[in-house]
């Protein structure tokens, strides 16, 4: 089995996520892009686990999923609160904590 297509797919997904985080303003979209990057890295981990024939990568992938689930809970809660107080989900509007 060739590893290359999976890694290429993982890289493409990661890049999309990355560009999304840097360019989009909607907090929900930024959040989804973060998830995309996490899953791109999960794909790479699982791929390498298969290639190496052991379970280390898959265990790491599970950890990432668990942490991501927790992160979603906290993140969505923050976004909800920002939306409630500011009537906007734009990350650029939430720029009060600065110099």
């Amino acid at each position, binding site marked *: 089995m060739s590893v290359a297509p999976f890694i290429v797919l993982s890289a493409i997904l990661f890049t999309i996520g990355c560009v999304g985080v840097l360019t989009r303003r909607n907090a929900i979209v*930024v959040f989804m892009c973060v998830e995309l990057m996490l899953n791109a890295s999960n794909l790479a981990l699982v791929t390498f686990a298969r290639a190496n024939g052991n379970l280390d990568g898959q265990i790491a992938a599970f950890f990432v999923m668990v942490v991501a689930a927790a992160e979603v809970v906290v993140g969505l809660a923050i976004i909800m609160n920002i939306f409630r107080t500011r009537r906007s989900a734009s990350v*650029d509007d939430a720029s009060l904590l600065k*110099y």
Partner: protein
Amino acid sequence: MNAPALMSAPLMHLPPVVDPSATSGVFSLLWLVVALPALGAVVLLLAGKRADAWAHLLGCATVAISFLISLILFFSLLGRGHGDRQVTQHLWTWFSAGHYTVNLDLLYDPLSALFLLLITGVGGIIHVYSIGYMEHDERRRRFFGYLNLFVAAMLVLVLASDYVGLFLGWEGVGLASYLLIGFWQHKPSAAAAAKKAFVINRVGDMGLFLGSALIFVTFGSTSFAAVSASSHQASSGTLTVIGLLLLLGACGKSAQFPLQTWLLDAMEGPTPVSALIHAATMVTAGVYLIVRSNFIFSLSENARTAVIVIGCITLLMGAVIGCAKDDIKKALAGSTMSQIGYMVLAAGLGPAGYAFAIFHLLTHGFFKANMFLGAGSVMHGMDDDVNMRHYGALRKAMPVTFATFAIGYLAILGVPPFAGFWSKDKIIEAAFGQNFVVGLCTLVGAGVTAFYMTRLMLMTFETSKRWEKGMHPHESPKVMTNPLKSLATLSALGGLFLVNGWITTWLTPVVGERVEHSLAVGSIGMSLIALVVVGIGVAVAWQLVGSRPVPRVAPENVSVFTRAARADLYGDAVNDEVVIKPGVAGIRGLGVFDGSVVDGIVQGLAASLTAISVKLRLVQNGFVRSYALAVLAGALIVIFAMLAVNFS
């Protein structure tokens, strides 16, 4: 060929060695002489108000008992053989470091014996007088505590057997002097005078301190015994430097030129203090130091010349200042400076003059304390007015004060047979034996002394009444006049010390054999010349003060000399110009340097850091996306760096 000539040349007189024997018998009481006044001071200063009722009695009793013990010791010493008159009492080892040990030993020899009698005797009389003088002062207990402290410190000074011990007493009397000059500290002038005395004394103390340090470096010890035994082995240069440093110490304590300015201001203190500390005892400590260090000064011609010059300058300066003062105490203070100038000069004459310096010190202690207490009695009757232009015709109002003051007056003038005649005459004689110019200085000084003392007498006790309105001068109570009477008796009889040359013989174990100089005019001729000069001084004073009315306000259109003398010969002005102004300017300069250079560097650094931070702060713009970009950039840099390391 020259060797025999060198051999036959007279050997230089080596100064006597301090070689005391341990105390025994009655001499074991020596420590009590110091301990009693010290104990008195502690009790009086710590007991608080409950001691107010009996404080003055305790203060007098401690000094009186010390005087009795001193008398007993003196007669015991008198009973001993001529070569056996030095005893030492070991109290304890003060400190030791390596080979250097300082013992707190008391040295009792003919010199300290005389000082013990003077300090406790005159000190006791002045204590009694203070009972009356300070009667209405609510802080009298504290006054007596300070007086006792002074007496204890002064006794430590003269009984120490070591320069370090002497320094302890030296500082102790300085402290007591400070406390007592500033006793009425609610007066700003008194507080300032106390501070001035303390600061100027510090300059002199530094001289004594450095002198002692150099003595330690040179001889490896600071005890009189060790130093006197080996002083002839030191190089003459070292001895001269030690001598000059000790002279600086003496100048500070004894108000000699150029450290003389504090003494006139010190008259802010209560009059008994002026009598005890600033006339009879403390200010003569410089003379004591020089005579005690005779094993240094006898071997250094140059140091002695410096001592003579200082003595000459001060004796004339003090006399001139005394001529122009209208404040009775300041006139007497100028006189004190002048008389101590005589003593310092005599001490500078070396073996020819040591004994006469001490002799004049004793007689001066009697008659000057007498006159200061007399002045205090006059002030007591005149509501503490010190301006002689407000006195006049007090002879009738205060007969006892006048009579005793007159005896002191005759004594300081050097009229036979009063004490001053014997002591001052001997100094003039010895000065002429040394050098004609020095002799002339002492002679002129005697004439000027006669002038200002006659002026003081006339303005105070004779001439017309110039009293303030509502003034009723009255004689002081017995507790004040009796001390005056006893001091007047001493002033009259002080010359007895010289009977048969007793005092010179007595002091021989300490200062060595006296060197005689015979004068062309002879001893009696010299006395006659001195008396003629004194007569001229009296006549001039009579002409200028006695024979015409004294103005109640000091005249303004006076000669430049009078103006200079009124300004203390510009002593303060010179200090201002030479020391204080450059000092202030230097400190200002340092301030500017600190403000511009030091602060400039520190603050410049801080300012540039702030400027950088202001720019750098803008990076923190609050946009999450730009933070994410920074994280990405960082991650990429790390990755590329790792790749570069791995594949290079």
